[in-house]
């Protein structure tokens, strides 16, 4: 793994007439797991899409190793930054091996077609995600958890040092959410990949993030290690939720316990 510097400078992103993210500066810590959290419509997915150059900046820039991504060749960026969008679509009848193989696109060219190197990368990606046994199965025959691991395998086959994932746990039950986040942690620790995840679940975010970014209304409210930045005020500010923060009995990381209007037996801490 070579180290890379992905950052946004004075970045403004939006759709149609609306700015979703405005004048934002952020740097993705190299070799770490960064998790972006925030309420619905706070701009966290938009920021991720901007970092993955799926959205053209209104102003400012996304810089990869000091150069604006818009000015770099698209395939060159694709060798460094991979992305798993929120709801990826797979063509009917495609097999796991075929899908994972399509991650090799940026490494092939007009004259350089499929090579043994591609085979090795696909095999390694399927091994790392535990999908090797599924290789010849059609995607449509897989469970949600298996399917998500296959998509991660595709992103791995792309062999990028940075992998960005937009709410990868959305349609998974709790078991498979944990399984997927464990897998991403493995990839970070064993392969040194820099990982950026947009997550809904605040407690899983606190547990798995090395670096947490809390967003509200298109701006970063606070960022840092979860234990340094998470407190009841932040949760109240970012999510508009009254809560208690206790140590996670398993990981020791902050755990957010919401205080709703009902079933509240203790006074606020």
């Amino acid at each position, binding site marked *: 793994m070579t180290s890379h510097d992905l950052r946004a400078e004075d970045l403004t992103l939006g759709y149609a007439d609306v700015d979703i993210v405005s004048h934002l500066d952020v740097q993705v810590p190299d070799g770490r797991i960064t998790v972006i959290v925030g309420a619905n419509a706070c701009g966290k997915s938009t920021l991720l899409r901007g970092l993955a150059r799926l959205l053209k900046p209104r102003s400012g820039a996304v810089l990869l190793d000091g150069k604006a991504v818009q000015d770099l060749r698209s395939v060159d960026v694709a060798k460094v930054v991979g992305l798993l969008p929120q709801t990826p679509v797979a063509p*009917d009848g495609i097999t796991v091996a075929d899908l994972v193989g399509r991650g090799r696109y940026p490494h092939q060219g007009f004259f350089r077609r499929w090579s043994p190197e591609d085979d090795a990368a696909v095999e390694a990606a399927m091994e790392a995600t535990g999908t090797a046994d599924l290789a010849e199965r059609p995607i449509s025959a897989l469970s949600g958890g298996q399917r998500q691991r296959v998509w991660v395998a595709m992103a791995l086959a792309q062999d990028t040092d940075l992998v960005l994932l937009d709410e990868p746990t959305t349609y998974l039950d709790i078991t498979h959410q944990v399984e997927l986040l464990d897998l991403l942690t493995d990839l970070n620790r064993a392969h040194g990949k820099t990982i950026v995840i947009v997550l809904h679940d605040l407690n899983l975010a606190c547990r798995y993030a090395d670096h947490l970014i809390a967003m509200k209304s298109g701006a970063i409210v606070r960022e840092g290690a979860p234990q340094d930045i998470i407190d009841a005020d932040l949760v109240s500010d970012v999510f508009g939720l009254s809560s208690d923060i206790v140590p996670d009995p398993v990981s020791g990381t902050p755990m957010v316990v919401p205080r709703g209007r009902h079933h509240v037996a203790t006074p606020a801490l």
Partner: protein
Amino acid sequence: MTTTTRPPTPSPAPARAGAVADVARITGLVVLTGVLVVVAFASITLGTRGVGVSTIIRSFTDYDPDSTAQTVIRELRVPRTIIGILAGMALGLGGALLQGVTRNPLADPSIMGTTNGASAAIVVTIMVFGAQSLHTYVWFGFLGAAAATFLVYAVASFGREGATPVKLALAGAAVSAGLYSLITGIVMTNLDALNEMRVWQVGSLASRGWPILHQVWPFFVVGILAALVTARWLNGLALGDDIATALGQRVARTRGLVFVIVTVLAGSAVAACGPIVFVGLVVPHLARAICGPDYRWTLPYTLLLSPILLLAADIVGRLVMRPGELQVGVVLGVIGAPAFILLVRRRNLAEL
């Protein structure tokens, strides 16, 4: 799921199932090439007694103008068959590319305005210059098809995201409907146009001889060769614009380029034979049913299956109404519709 992660130790390499499938797919292509040769031979020799390969060759190398068989083969059958093969390939590949680039399983060059564009150009020509011979229509048909497709693409490109699959489908429907009104308007008031349209509107290989082939073959060849190298792009686009971009594709540019190729393919086919439906719609689905959704295989399969289908339908059309003939466009509709329904019922074609 108990095996979340395993260290990437080299596992004993199992015989890769993918490799076995590749061998089967290559065998399939070889078989289809053989079938195409047989169908082409039948198309050339049909109804002529005692004609073999030697007669066909002799009609070119050692032409005897007094021999009816040789003249029929040389002047009618061979060019008709070659046009059938090229038009079949162009229609099939055009459909496959369009389905791939729009991720719309019902995409077919005709819904992108090509057919009505060509028809409109031809009726306007007749209205302005009067009825012409078939090979004069070729250029106007081609230009009309190209102009209509360009218009569809331009309309769909408005807005930030550019020509998305949904906008393309809507623009195609709108432009086609507009052109259809124009055609109907002219045909209702111009008897020449009505008579010419009546014949042209049904796609056919009949009376397509060397003059037409000489006009369109370069477009066919360039379009077909260009189409065959788009497989990697289509494989990327099949995963959605986001992943295609993340994989390093320049989606808007790729889509525009594929559209140009489709225009050349569909434009030359409609110019040479008139509108022939079904090949572009059905054959790519047939190909996918055989070889799966990888365009590196789908395109070669479409390349071979399309002319087989077109020539076979043309042969059927020549057999059923002897000594007259039924246009290939009609035959394809009659055979194609039930075949397509069967295909839809057997497999769920939808998501592309």
